[in-house]
């Protein structure tokens, strides 16, 4: 488990991180969402042991990270702008990482690069931005580390490649318990991949929850009441977080479990009633609205 406890970091007059406590559990894909300047890269660079926090602690499986090779052997950090040696090609970079990471699997890298049709014998300087990101991901996966941290690496991958990388992660997670930690400035980029999501805004962590937990307590209901007065009955029995009307149609986000909602609506005469799945975006909107944040402006693009 990667754990941060009350992390703070300031750059000059700019408070980049403020009292961040976060847990990244093994076997889950954790996403970190935030606008540009929210502090995502700073948090990842602290966790990767590049930056030293002003206060607070970071540990990877209980080991302090900063300047500790033993802890760093357990993770691979893919920054938003990956660096490759001048004149290097994919294979020479893989050879480099093979000498750095004891768990690096060169055969795996060769197979993956073939599967992803990456020209690993060509100079990296001839690669497109997307190809460089693919190479970074393949190097990270082949390193055999327990954790992979990706800083906005998914942003900019085309849909086909995103799907392929997701499958790759799923395979690695099931085979050897890989734990990816992904940051993005767009919630939609992480929607179908993460098990756990944290929302970072202006250096503070607005929320960090498991998607299952979030989904368990929240429902999206669509209904047309026979008698519009019945809405008061619903309000009395369920916590309505949002209610949007389109003519006679109510689209409500309610804080309740499925059984309770069905039980309430069983006593109400409706023309139409349906329980719908909540998107990640809707979950975030519902969770953050109470705090006075318009999450749509923060992370949905």
């Amino acid at each position, binding site marked *: 488990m990667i754990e941060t406890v009350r992390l703070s970091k300031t750059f000059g007059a700019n408070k980049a991180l403020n009292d961040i406590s976060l847990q990244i559990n093994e076997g889950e894909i954790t996403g970190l969402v935030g606008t540009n300047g929210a502090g995502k890269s700073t948090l990842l660079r602290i966790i990767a042991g*590049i*930056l030293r926090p002003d206060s607070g602690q970071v540990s990877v499986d209980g080991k302090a990270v900063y300047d500790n090779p033993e802890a760093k052997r357990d993770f691979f*950090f893919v920054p938003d702008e*990956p660096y490759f040696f001048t004149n290097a090609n994919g294979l*020479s970079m893989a050879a*480099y990482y093979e*000498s750095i990471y004891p768990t690096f699997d060169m055969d795996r890298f060769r197979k993956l690069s073939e599967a992803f049709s990456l020209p690993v014998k060509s100079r990296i300087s001839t690669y497109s931005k997307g190809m460089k990101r693919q190479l970074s991901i393949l190097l990270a996966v082949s390193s055999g580390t327990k954790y992979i941290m990706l800083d906005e690496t998914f942003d900019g991958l085309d849909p086909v490649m995103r799907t392929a990388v997701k499958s790759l992660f799923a395979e690695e997670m099931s085979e050897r318990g890989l734990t990816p930690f992904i940051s993005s400035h767009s919630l939609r980029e992480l929607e179908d991949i993460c098990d756990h999501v944290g929302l970072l805004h202006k250096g503070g962590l607005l929320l960090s929850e498991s998607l299952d937990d979030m989904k368990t307590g929240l429902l999206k209901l669509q209904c047309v009441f026979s008698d519009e007065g019945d809405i008061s009955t619903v309000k009395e029995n369920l916590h309505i977080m949002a209610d949007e009307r389109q003519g006679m149609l109510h689209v409500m986000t309610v804080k309740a479990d499925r059984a309770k909602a069905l039980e309430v609506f069983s006593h109400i005469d409706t023309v139409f009633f349906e329980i719908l799945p909540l998107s990640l975006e809707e979950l975030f909107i519902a969770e953050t609205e109470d705090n006075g944040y318009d999450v749509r402006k923060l992370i949905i693009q």
Partner: protein
Amino acid sequence: MMSGNSSSSNYIKIQKNLLGNRKWLVILAFLTFILYNGVFLALALSTYDAKPVMTAKDLLSYIGFDRIITIVGAILLGLESFHWLDSRTKLDFYWSQPVSKRSLFVSTVINSMGIYTASYLLSLLIGFVIAGIGGGMNGSVLLLAFIGFIRNFFLFLSVYFYAVLAVMLTGNIIVAVIADAVLLTFGPIFDWSINHCMGFLKTRAYGSAFTTHGILSPLYTVTDSMRTNGAILRNLFCALLSLVLSYLLYKHRKAEDAGNSVPLPVVRRITKVILIFLCCILSTAFCSDSSTITAATGAVIAVMIISAVVVGGIMETIYNSDVRAAFRGYGYSIAGCAAALILFLGCYYDIAGYNRWVPAAQDVKSAYITPEEVNDSYRSSYSKKYMKLTDIDTLNSLLTIGEQTITRDPYAKGIRLNISYRMKNGHTRTRRVIIPGSAFSSMNSVFKSQSFKEGFFTVYHDSHFTSQKDFGITYYYMDKNAEENRTKTVTGSNIDIYKKIREAYIKDLDSYDIDTAAFETQAGKIEIMTLENGVEKERTFLPVYKSFTNTINALKSEDMYADVTPLSDYYDSDSMPFYLGQRSSFLGHENDK
């Protein structure tokens, strides 16, 4: 912690990776050294036609390109070693990997030393093989080459760590290059600047001129790194100091410093004050190179202020990477400029009364004088040790004559003497005087005295030389065109020849006085050089005047004398008046009595 095996294997991997990424430096180092040692030096060794000892010494010690290659190589390797610290992308790459900062630092340093050492020694080996085929090799060459390598290696270390320190102090490679230039040249510039200012004292003592003795600058040792073992120690000191500072700065360096030109505020401030101080002093050189200095004091001050504004502006622009920031931190500009002004005006108006100082005879134990023009380091130390003049009143009168001469004309001509008083309180105080030709007679009692002769001519206390079983004696003379030539060099165990010459020379010195020293044309000079394992240890010169008949006869008996008189039109001996006489036009006396 890793196990021993895992640690060494990890270390080898890091070295391999480093070499892989520094191929261009490895190739450059090998090519350069092979060109120098493998081609140039080998050819020179194979074709140089002279005495074997001098061949090795001349070729390996005085050519000097190896030092230039060493310095340039050290700077390149030093700047390249940690240049990635100025880039966030590269820093993320290196510092996120499972390699400790310490390992990375140590491995990089060792890698750099390895590149230098391997390319140097391998090319030397190739050079020796080629020279051996050409018949130009002998044992002394090998020994000198090894000594040369050791000295160059220490020079490399000091220059390399200065470059590393420059990178650690900055967060931008271009600023690091500037910082390295400042660090390397700071010592000589600092000394020169201070002494330039002290030049306004007019009679300042040459012997006691301010110097840091190269403690803070490896470049000081370049000029004599092949001659003195002290250079090794000074370079070692520079290397260790910059290594420790570099490592501490690296260890505590923050990732966010990448891209910041000079991250540490304290370094910014100190550097700014010191550089402005130096530039202000240096700027006075533009206004003080003539006798117009008296009238130009106001101009000097104005130039200093302008320098402070310009240099301060440039530094703030570099610090902030923004030309609009040029006038920030003016307090430090004022501090640097004020310090320079205080020094300049203090020296110019002789606030400390330096020029006016004349010691009371009862406070002085003894004294020694060294003619400034006699450029012989051994003689200076010899005089310091053996010359014990006790006629303090005469020396004080010379001091007064010198002061009056300077007051009348700061650029007066004459013999420049450094008079050093050994005070009874244990201190030594030195003053420089210029004695014009018209006042030479005042020096006669000093020059005639036995205590002067014993402290000036190295034949009186020569155990330093005679204790060596191997030394060379050479007679140099001036040919008709006043160009230096030599008859022959006697090397090996020749103590008897030396004793014969010595005896004759001491006899001739009986008649030596200021007239001989200043007005008699020098026929030539005898060079005595001691050798240890074929390497020059020390050398000194004995002037031979035409009136030194005993010495000339002794030289003739050994077939070492050449009876040649240079044409007076070619005669320009300002630099060695005690050896070669003075031109009549210079002193107002007839040359060659």
